[in-house]
């Protein structure tokens, strides 16, 4: 279980994200989340905005961080979401 302290920053990996996608929103038939999906749009992976909202909720709970609501719209791919989350974390750590 990752720490929930905001003063220690943990880098979210694609493996973490795909695990949480499966747990929060399930896995579309015919999609292999273990494949090369980092730049595949979430829509092509079978996830709509509500699924993203759900997984972002899980990231926030597990990592004790806050992610802006706009992330659902701004992050169109797993890579973009990871960059957004990890940059935000770095920002929070810098601010601390």
């Amino acid at each position: 279980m990752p720490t929930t302290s905001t003063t220690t920053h943990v880098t979210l990996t694609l493996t973490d994200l795909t695990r949480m996608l499966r747990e929060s929103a399930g896995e579309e038939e015919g999609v292999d989340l273990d494949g090369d999906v980092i730049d595949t749009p979430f829509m092509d992976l079978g996830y709509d905005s509500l699924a993203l909202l759900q997984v972002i909720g899980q990231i926030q709970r597990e990592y004790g961080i806050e992610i802006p609501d706009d992330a659902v719209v701004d992050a169109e791919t797993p890579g973009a979401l990871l960059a957004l989350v990890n940059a935000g974390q770095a920002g929070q750590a810098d601010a601390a």
Partner: protein
Amino acid sequence: MSRTAVVTGLGVTAPNGLGTESYWKATLAGESGLGPVTRFDASGYPSRVAGEIADYVAEEHIPSRLMPQTDHMTRLALTAADWALADAGMDPAELPEYGVGCVTSASGGAVEFGQRELQNLWSKGKEYVSAYQSFAWFYAVNTGQISIRNKLRGPSGVLLTEQAGGIDSLGQARRYVRKGFPAVISGGVDAPLCPWGWVPQIASGLLSTVNDPARAYLPFSAEASGYVPGEGGAILLIEDAEAARTRGAAHRYGEIAGYAATLDPPPGSGRPPGLRRAAENALADAGVTPGDIDVVFADAAGTPALDRAESAALVALFGPRAVPVTAPKTMTGRLLAGGAALDAATALLALRDGVIPPTAHVTGPAPDQQIDLVTEAREAPLRTALVLARGHGGFNAALVVRRHPDA
């Protein structure tokens, strides 16, 4: 001549049988699905018996993407809809894009999902509430999810008339068929077995507090003490008879020949309840007389006053002990929005096989109720059946189903 609505597919999820044939076999054998509540801790409540579906494994029926966003109720409904379509041999994609609709009945919505997320909200905080709470609890959710999964773009809707809803949804489906839509997925499935679904039923004062599963729900008997709730229901595929013929549908369980709904007058009005009028109107709608009805599937509320009112309506309409009356829901419990849909499916199976399923656990009607209550499966030539339902709050619905010549 208006279009004829026929039933070409059935999907049943019931406490005494998962899948149509499994349910029908158990029902004819008088096998009950009532037992002590296991789905939640009911030990603190006065009523502790329910009809639970024990052998349903959601992961075997529901795609991964739908699991986090569906309540138990919606999973059962999606499964029943899949089975109804498979039974009818229909792929909605082969029909006109806007041709297939979906109308189901509902009561309180997906209460188990809703309760869990509200508990998350108040005990942990808003960050712990599922994003899917935005729709997964909603009473229209079964119609929505069935429509999305099967890419239905025809007319859709949801009817909330408590236990009468299963019939009202079939009546509405028939309206759409008459308007020219070739097919409508209809019926109802409910799953109120959680504290949120339980407590309002206790508050109605109509729930049995007898906690022996074989004695808790004894409609029409001298020992009637209320009803037992259950989960499940039936989804039926309603088709225009011509459209079914054109696509070569394998079978027709029967025709939706008559339908009517009435509301009871307010308490204290002195006017009679509306059940008899609903039955009379449904018969008139079907163009049949009481003598044409071969069997009645009763509402069977299970409380003495409501049972007497139903018996009196039947005696007034048919005469004393003039028509066989049955209540196979004694083996499933009352399924709220799913109950009347399951009764309609059961009536169609009875027509198919020429056998009336029994009212389980009941040895006979109370002396003041002059009905021919079927307590053991009875073979009979069946052509036309009347299905009755009453919903808490004054709803009455009646459905006449009849064998169809194309069967």
